[in-house]
């Protein structure tokens, strides 16, 4: 598959869940191969995955998508150190063990994001994450937030992101 995609020496490689069906050992081989090819051919890679572990290892820039919209986008370092969208925060918190400090596994429960992704057939006005969000208020139900540059190079689509930012500074 990779050979097929590479045969025309592309400048851009779109890898859509390239390792999702694979075991960790083979996954590591494939990821190594992709990054090697990327270096050699000076290629740009768009890596699509639901695995935050892989993303954190491979990507320089990360965009988080929810129900058809980019809700947050910034560098890999920023996203894991200082997520500003409630959905991103929820995703990072719900990864079991090993990704966080080793004590976390002794915590009995994983944090979850309540509910599930809304049906795209009949979307309510307002933020698409509204129903599952612990920060949400009236404003969020009425008006959809747009992607905004909160810090240099850090784009977030959330009315509450400045609150979350302050919260982060307090901790």
């Amino acid at each position, binding site marked *: 598959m990779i050979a097929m995609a590479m045969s025309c020496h592309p400048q851009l490689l779109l890898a859509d869940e390239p390792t999702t069906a694979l075991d960790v050992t083979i996954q590591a081989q494939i990821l190594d191969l992709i990054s090697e090819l990327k270096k050699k051919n000076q290629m740009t890679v768009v890596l699509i995955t639901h695995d935050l572990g892989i993303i*954190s290892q491979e990507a320089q820039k990360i965009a988080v998508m929810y129900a058809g919209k980019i809700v947050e986008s910034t560098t890999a370092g920023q996203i894991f*150190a200082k997520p500003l969208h409630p959905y991103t925060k929820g995703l990072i918190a719900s*990864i079991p063990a090993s990704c966080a400090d080793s004590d976390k*596994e002794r915590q009995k429960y994983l944090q*979850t994001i309540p509910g599930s992704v809304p049906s795209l057939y009949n979307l309510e006005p307002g933020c698409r994450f509204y129903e599952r969000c612990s920060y949400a208020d009236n404003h969020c139900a009425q008006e959809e937030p747009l992607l905004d540059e909160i810090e240099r190079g850090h784009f977030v689509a959330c009315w509450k992101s400045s609150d979350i930012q302050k919260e982060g500074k307090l901790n």
Partner: protein
Amino acid sequence: MPPSLIEIQKLYKKYSLGSGILNSQKRVIPAVNNVSLQIYKGETLGLVGESGCGKSTLARLIAVLEKPSSGNIYFKGEDIFLYDKKALKAYRRNVQLIFQDPYSSLNPRKSAASIIKEPLTIHQVGNKNQRQESVAELMEKVGLNKEQTNRYPHEFSGGQRQRIGIARALVLQPELIIADEPVSALDVSIQAQILNLLKDLKQDFGLTYLFISHDLNVIRHMSDRIAVMYLGQIVELAGASEIYEHPFHPYTRMLLSALPGCDPVNKKRIAAIKGEAGAENDRGCNFQNRCPYKRAVCSEQEPVLAQIEDERFCACHLTGSI
């Protein structure tokens, strides 16, 4: 030590690939190869390994969906392969499965309630009203609401379908749940919900889990003890935190080092992993082709699963020296 619920002794399951026109030699695949293992009452035993290493075959053998080539499995001291029809039915009531794919493991023509009720009907438990009652009770327990009773699988999301699968497995009040990759098809936020639910249910119903996954993070989060399987054999068995903090077997080390962490600042250099789980060798250790520590003895003699410490087992010639 709590009593063992399931005791597996020297279990083998071999599949033979028939000889074809082009291939005159018959090949035998040992999917489960001399496995001995105990599952204690009340624990969660994690079973981890690459796809095709025999995890699911082992699960199917425990559920008596397959007959072994040789070896025994004892349930509370009784050999499950010697059960007569009636005893087997009673055993199956006690051992239930949760499957990986919530899209294909539910009958699309049946409503959620009738899917959950079906085991009760098959085992003739209670009367109509009692059955309905236990279904309603269980749906609430697994987080499905009343309005969803008569909906069909296609109206549910992946996570909700898995909840139906879990309710179906629990409705007969089994003692052992075999969860075969129960969250592999779900994304992280839903995965966390299901894992929490499974932990809750374990407490509420006093369940024992055999939890199968290839996801090392999930296995660690769920398990008390972990068995690592490679090409049909258990290569390491130990408490969950011991195995993650001090893995003995080279294969376990390889699995753990291949795991991507979630820290983009301190990237773990993924250790060079060579080869794939391929044909096993005629002689010696199954892992020798991929093992970075290989020595002469490894191609001569097959290592056996030996007790290293209390409750720690490892099948490697070099245990202690690497």
